[in-house]
């Protein structure tokens, strides 16, 4: 099977540049605004969209993404509405891959079969579920693969060479390398170490390797993009949204515009990655 992710990655490889993968929280701060943010992303230079599914207890996330999830839940966001955002986006864009990212419980409660059928119908291409390691593959990973949806696994600095094959076994689409041990939005790890780690993973798989956790600036994106197949930006985008919200959640500027400005800059960083590396 080839998915939108496979096709997009192949295209970027042909172009000789890494992917800019952008994360935002579905429903933050409300349904309509986050739909407008999503629509703005590809135009600003995002190659792959990670659509966050809010969860009340995001154990792997730092304060910024925790707050975004709470804003979304307060605004009435549900898993059903997050799927609706994707379906609505798909009406105007059939190319940009959408990866749902979040935690397992809302999916489990929704019903795995139901969820996969509706996700597929909504144009979802992949899933990143933080609290489903390979040991729990029977829960969602295997059913997702059968439904034609990529299951993108996180590899981390604690995933050693012995464990990597297990982590990669049912992974498809791309591998998401978590640049450090820690929560989202922490300080970026030593970029040399990240490059070495990406190389290590590539020795075990032909899948593209994208790097996330801690990448915030165009310069960091450029450096990481020199060795990785993609760079994931999350907290910086979520912060750009939070920055245009007042104390009561009122918008002081257009969040979609704020995100577009940030992402355009990041896209330039990513696009210059290989040029710089080649120099």
């Amino acid at each position, binding site marked *: 099977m080839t998915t939108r992710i496979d096709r997009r990655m192949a295209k970027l490889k042909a172009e000789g540049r890494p992917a800019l993968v952008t994360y935002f929280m579905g429903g933050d701060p409300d349904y309509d605004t986050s739909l407008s943010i999503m629509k703005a992303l590809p135009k600003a230079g995002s190659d792959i969209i990670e659509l966050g599914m809010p969860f*009340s207890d995001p154990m792997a996330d730092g304060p910024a993404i925790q707050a975004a999830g709470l804003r979304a839940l307060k605004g009435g966001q*549900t898993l059903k509405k997050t799927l609706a955002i994707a379906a609505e986006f798909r009406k105007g864009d059939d190319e940009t891959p959408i990866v749902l990212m979040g935690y397992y419980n809302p999916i489990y*409660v929704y019903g795995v079969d139901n969820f996969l059928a509706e996700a597929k119908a909504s144009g979802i291409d992949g899933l990143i579920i933080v609290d489903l390691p390979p040991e729990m593959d029977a829960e969602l990973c295997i059913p997702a693969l059968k439904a034609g949806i990529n299951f993108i696994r996180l590899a981390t600095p604690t995933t050693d060479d012995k464990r990597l094959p297990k982590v990669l076994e049912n992974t498809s689409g791309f591998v998401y390398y978590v640049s450090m041990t*820690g929560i989202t939005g922490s300080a970026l790890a030593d970029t040399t170490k990240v490059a070495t780690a990406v190389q290590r993973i590539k020795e075990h798989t032909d899948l593209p390797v994208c790097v996330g956790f801690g990448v915030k600036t165009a310069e960091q994106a450029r450096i990481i993009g020199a060795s990785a197949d993609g760079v994931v930006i999350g907290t910086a985008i979520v912060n750009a949204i939070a920055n245009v919200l007042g104390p009561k959640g009122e918008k002081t500027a257009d969040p979609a515009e704020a995100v577009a400005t940030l992402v355009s800059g990041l896209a330039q960083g990513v696009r210059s990655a290989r040029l710089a590396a080649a120099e």
Partner: protein
Amino acid sequence: MNKPALPNSFRTGPDEQGMFGIFGGRFVAETLMPLILDLEREWNKAKDDPEFKAELSALSTFYAGRPSKLYFAEGLTRHLGGAKIYLKREDLNHTGSHKINNCLGQILLAKRMGKKRIIAETGAGQHGVASATVAARFGYPCVVYMGATDVARQSPNVFRMKLLGAEVRPVTAGHGTLKDAMNEALRDWVTNVEDTYYLIGTAAGPHPYPELVRDFQSVIGTEARQQMLEQEGRLPDTIIAAVGGGSNAIGLFHPFLDDKDVEIIGIEAGGRGLDGVEHCASMNAGRPGVLHGNRTYLLQDDDGQILEGHSISAGLDYPGVGPEHSWLRDSGRVDYQPILDDEALEAFQLCTRTEGIIPALESAHAIAHAVKIAPNMAKDKIIIVNLSGRGDKDVHTVAKMMGMEI
């Protein structure tokens, strides 16, 4: 719920994947996966290692004061006029609750694994105090995550932890209770993977925690069973324990699970009643879901968002429960009943006045159920209630509920 087929023994779980039926498992981020696999390996070696067992046994005896007494509560029994009530006196342990049993076991594991730093979460502060205690005894720095609400309502325990040299980090996320403290402890662990041992206080979390916490706490039931045989020449008719995460309960229950004639009752926090959302009765009013590394009964909404529970008792104020309890519920072996805040408060005062024992509010929930059922039982029937901790820490909360200032 579908009833799973009844097993020959209720004491064989979990399986190799850490499952009790559909409950339990290892629902954690990849970063933590190698750590819990390491812990499982070390635990499997340690539990059969005579040296480990001897060291734990010596600490239990000379440091914690085990065995704890099985005490015939004559005053309470006379007052209720029915079944004989025995109290398993975990309140007499060093640090004042059953929590020390688990902490001694896990600190020895941490030492075997060469860890350099201890983190823990706490609700009522009993586990935080026990963690800070063993960290002091073994010379480890210790960080305890505690919900900001709990920091306020359990201030004596906060001070005890600080005296013991632990750093107490208040957690303001959510309602600032045990659930939020556990999230924050997991965030610390995922950040400090190299040197940190996460000392989970209850029989929940990813495998192997539910199993190893249960095994460290099973000393309660093993002793109680033996003591009852010695003191009464027979097994009890009913055993009762309060269930928050469920470590004192599984510790009492597990050795009795295959004694078919022993009725086993777990008590959940009914808070202000099960009709609304102000309770923590996940097994009576929740449904299965995935949180904090395991699948278990949870208080949650239709979208799978976890709800904040409520209980007068900080130690029961958790929207989930250990996975083995969920399995015991579905299999029908254990009956889980709710007790309201007011009922617990009444039992708290009754036990204090008739026995001269101030119980922890958690334990008062279990006593309250004995108060309900004992009068309707014949005088030759026997109940064991797990008095999991002492109530000194709760006097401020109780005074406030009674409209007094101290």
